[in-house]
């Protein structure tokens, strides 16, 4: 047994250790394999000609000059490939009658968003391809564009005139109908007479995932398998869909996601660029590469969020919620993308959050517009829902004139009530909101900050302090296949793993999830090391190549650990079961007397035993195995979760608002999350930090802005404001632990938690700082200008602008509703 690391007898468990990451050595030395690094013999380069118009008919394309340019190989338009290019898939038709336009990789006769591909150049170098792209002459007849979501929902201008409507699908859930709760209209009617009704309209602005690695694709058709490298989160789904769309045998396609520089849902997509490069490589018989520029990425990679939320919360006079009604308008952009329609639907299960609402209704209209298509962005549907309900709970508290925790405590599921079936029909397995809240308040110094807030208010300090609360939960670990089936999703939600025991004692673990920064190689090594009793260093995690890890459903929805990790546990357990009869044979004992612990098979009651690596070598040699036993310990497992899991946490944010300038400054942010058992605390902390900043950025800075011609004006990093180190602060984080009951390790997802929780905490804090001035909402991103305008609007006593909601008197609890005002 050469070169395997002995596991010291006294070593503690790997799980729970803050192991430094295995993947870092490569990444900190520049030994990386981003798709754009790949160079193949004879490789050709692709550049795209994109539409500058949001909606137009293509009347003519003159590509002759471009074709004649030196080193240009070919120029292709949509018309050239209309027959063979196929349409991009939508894997989640949310209703049977969903309307979805054909999504051609290259537009054929009409463009439907600014940035859509109209022609493709192939040249010998990337620079020459880009040069030639500017020589293609496209004539357009500009058409009116459907840009405003609310107007689009009224079909004033059609994004796709041939469809006759912009309304794609109407999806609805009603607790009375589903038998999970009461009638929401009755609850609202009752509250209007003798309770409280809070009605608000919130805007979820359009965001851009803005992963740091621009998307890139290389396709090599020169082997028996056509190989595609792509900066994707979903190599397995991509392989399947390439086959399904193009008719190429699935067995002739290999997809590799090499190092992938972030995704956040933005690379949960099958893209026009992937289909185009696949087509070109097949046509030309040569490898081709396409790497987008940042401007192209911001303009044409899918966007996220973009909803209007009309919310009605009914409560009794004491603040016990009696019903919640949600009416959403969700902007799908130009096309219904891979899971685009499903994103707001995921929110349907989360508006009721951690609360025991007796009645609930969710209605969602998805709408087509002439903007970039939308799809998943970190949290996908759940941040939107969490924002809506957590803002409303603060509004309810304000209406009652009580601390925001008072209404939450009155309505949340108590620790003793788990498992709890919610009004949306989900069964929350575990949680303890009281414990997480207590710890978060302690970390934050809640009472001290409240006291300071009071003091500043009393002294009329121009810089006011606000405290925002967000007690979130989320459903993650996508997903039980049966649930996905009931929601008309086109695939399952299982995950696959294989464990290969090598004769040298090393262990290869193949996983079907595909990491892009999450630290899978480290966390999964910890899991496998513990399960098999081998050294952390001896485990190698293989992923992201459909020929190596042949089966999987990839990475999104905080599923890698809770679904993928569990598949590894199950495969490892099978290895142990397969090894037992061999160990018994070699130790000349009965299988029933064989025990396995810490990597060693021993005969009960004796000191005889063999290490798992020794069994692996003996199995490889196969000289002396029991009759009828195959010479292999290798095992596969496919795990289909029985339930989602439900991380939760209490997040607290203190914001200082300069009432004279509108400047907002984050003073403190503390959170206590319960994500079940933790495999690697270092990785968890990193996931939370990154998630928090993305959520905070939605509250304060980021927005995809279009002008009235439908041009994305925030199409570069000059204008799309990703926060920098200078814009952010350090967070104070801690955990409580309620292990999940639906997986062996008791883990819950963490990838999206920070993003889901933080946005409402920040906005609640800002509103809290200026509520005494009569403000009860500020639209995101809460820029100094918006905050200042809100304050001015109130002070001037003039007309309420979109960003500033009308005042109500908190001294009169239970009085009539304040009308949601963001007209």
């Amino acid at each position, binding site marked *: 047994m050469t070169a395997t690391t002995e596991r010291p007898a006294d070593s503690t468990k790997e799980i729970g250790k803050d192991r430094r990451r295995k993947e*870092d050595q490569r990444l*900190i030395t520049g030994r990386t394999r*981003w798709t754009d690094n790949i160079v193949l013999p004879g490789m050709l380069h692709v550049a795209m000609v994109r539409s500058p118009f949001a909606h137009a008919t293509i009347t003519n394309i003159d590509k002759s000059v471009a074709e004649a340019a030196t080193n240009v190989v070919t120029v292709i338009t949509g018309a050239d490939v209309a027959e063979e290019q196929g349409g991009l898939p939508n894997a989640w038709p949310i209703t049977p009658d969903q309307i979805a336009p054909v999504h051609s990789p290259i537009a054929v006769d009409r463009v439907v968003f600014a940035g859509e591909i109209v022609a493709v150049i192939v040249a010998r170098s990337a620079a020459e391809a880009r040069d030639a792209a*500017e020589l293609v002459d496209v004539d*357009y007849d500009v058409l009116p564009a459907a840009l405003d979501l609310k107007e689009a929902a009224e079909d004033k201008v059609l994004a796709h005139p041939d469809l006759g409507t912009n309304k794609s699908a109407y999806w609805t859930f009603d607790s009375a109908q589903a038998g999970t709760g009461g009638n929401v209209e009755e609850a609202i009617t009752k509250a209007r007479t003798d309770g409280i009704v809070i009605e608000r309209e919130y805007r979820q602005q359009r965001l851009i995932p803005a992963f740091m690695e621009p998307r890139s694709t290389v396709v090599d058709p020169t082997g028996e398998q056509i190989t595609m490298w792509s900066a994707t989160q979903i190599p397995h789904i991509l392989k399947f869909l390439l086959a399904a769309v193009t008719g190429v045998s699935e067995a002739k396609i290999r997809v590799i996601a090499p190092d992938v520089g972030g995704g956040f849902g933005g690379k949960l997509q099958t893209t026009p660029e992937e289909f185009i490069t696949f087509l070109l490589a097949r046509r030309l018989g040569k490898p081709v590469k396409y790497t987008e520029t940042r*401007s192209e990425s911001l303009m044409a990679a899918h966007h996220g969020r973009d909803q209007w939320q009309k919310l009605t919360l009914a409560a009794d006079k004491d603040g016990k919620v009696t019903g919640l009604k949600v009416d959403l308008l969700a902007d799908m952009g130009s096309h219904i993308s891979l899971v685009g329609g499903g994103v707001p639907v995921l929110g349907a299960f989360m508006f009721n959050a951690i609360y025991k609402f007796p009645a609930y209704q969710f209605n969602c209209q998805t709408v087509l517009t002439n903007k970039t298509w939308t799809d998943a962005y970190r949290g996908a549907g759940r941040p939107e829902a969490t924002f809506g309900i957590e803002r409303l709970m603060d509004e309810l508290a304000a209406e009652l004139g009580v601390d925001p925790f008072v209404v939450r405590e009155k309505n949340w599921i108590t620790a003793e009530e788990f498992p709890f079936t919610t009004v949306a029909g989900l069964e929350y397995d575990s949680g303890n909101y009281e414990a997480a809240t207590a710890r978060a308040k302690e970390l934050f110094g809640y009472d001290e900050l409240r006291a300071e807030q009071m003091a500043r208010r009393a002294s009329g300090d121009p810089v006011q302090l606000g405290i925002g609360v967000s007690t979130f939960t989320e459903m993650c670990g996508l997903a039980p296949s049966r649930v996905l089936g009931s929601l008309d999703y086109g695939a399952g939600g299982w995950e696959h793993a294989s464990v290969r025991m090598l004769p040298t004692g090393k262990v290869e673990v193949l996983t079907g999830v595909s990491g892009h920064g999450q630290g899978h190689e480290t966390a999964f090594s910890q899991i496998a090391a513990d399960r098999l009793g081998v050294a952390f260093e001896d485990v190698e995690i293989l992923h992201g190549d459909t020929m190596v890890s042949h089966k999987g459903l990839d990475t999104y929805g905080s599923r890698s650990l809770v679904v993928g990790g569990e598949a590894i546990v199950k495969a490892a357990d099978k290895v142990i079961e397969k090894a037992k009869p061999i160990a018994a044979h070699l130790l000349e004992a009965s299988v029933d007397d064989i025990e396995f612990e810490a990597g060693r098979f021993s005969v009960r009651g004796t000191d005889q035993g063999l290490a798992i690596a020794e069994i692996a070598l003996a199995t490889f040699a196969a000289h002396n195995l029991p009759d009828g036993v195959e010479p292999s310990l290798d095992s596969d497992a496919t795990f289909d979760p029985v339930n989602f899991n439900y991380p939760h946490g209490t997040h607290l944010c203190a914001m200082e608002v300069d009432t004279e300038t509108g400047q907002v400054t984050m003073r403190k942010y503390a959170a206590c999350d319960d994500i079940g058992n933790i495999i690697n605390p270092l990785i968890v902390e990193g996931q939370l930090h990154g998630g928090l900043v993305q959520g905070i950025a939605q509250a304060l800075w980021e927005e995809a802005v279009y002008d009235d011609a439908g041009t*994305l004006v925030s199409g570069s990093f000059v204008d799309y404001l990703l926060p920098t180190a200078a814009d952010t602060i350090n967070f104070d984080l801690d955990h409580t632990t309620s292990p999940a009951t639906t997986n062996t390790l008791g883990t819950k997802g963490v990838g999206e938690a920070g993003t889901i929780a933080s946005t409402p905490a920040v906005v609640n804090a800002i509103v809290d700082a200026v509520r005494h001035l009569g403000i009860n909402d500020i639209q995101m991103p809460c820029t100094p200008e918006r905050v200042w305008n809100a304050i001015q609007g109130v002070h001037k006593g003039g007309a309420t602008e979109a960003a500033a909601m009308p005042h109500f008197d908190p001294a009169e609890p239970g009085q009539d509703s304040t009308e949601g005002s963001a007209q």
Partner: protein
Amino acid sequence: MGRLGVADRHLDLALIIWSMSDETLNPGYGAGCAAALVERTPGAVDPGRLAFYRLLDGLLSTPTGPPTSGQPRRPTVEGDAGHTCGHAQTTLERPMTKINLTVDGAKVSDDVEPRMLLVQYLREKLGKTGTVIGCDTSNCGACTVHLNGTSVKSCNMLAVQAEGAEVTTIEGLAQNGTLHPVQEAFRECHGLQCGFCTPGMIMQSVDLLNENPNPSEEEIRLGLEGNLCRCTGYQNIVKSVQHAAAHGAGATTSGAQA
């Protein structure tokens, strides 16, 4: 917070324009860049690029003083004035320029198009793919390398401007298999996730510590402001730099820079 933050990005843009220098932004590419582009190739303009050119136009028409810090100036180049606008010139012969420089301790020489960016030269000609490209407006810092011991955004200068220079990339930072203390600190403090921003972050952090071996948290945050990270939320990056400072990183020099 009183920090410059996102609003300061425009300074970066001014830097690009300035670094392009007057020959680069000759008539047709300077003020009126966008209009020239549209006129030449109506309908086929990448809207993102168009927006960027418009921005250039806007900034060029307002007097923007060049920054006072020492920026590398491009050497005089025979023939075609290179330009980073990448404007179509496919029918023209592009004369090549010979450059000699030292990259990660090795002397290299190549004929390059005058318009080739330093980052493209590093990646495409030298295979130094550890240095990456994250944007097209000089905002992200992913491409940061050291030029004669000082950090520069290698997308923000031409390869020909590096004539005679010593360039250190992330690949040349570790010496004889020993990681630079800043590299070590990024691993120790989990200062990276996907790792795409990391080469630039590390190179910028090394530069920051060379200038200020004991920076405050505020100074670190401001010093890294030109480098974007979408994964980490910066907290552990700041911690990494603090860790490196505590372990004497500021006393070291980067890679090939003796």
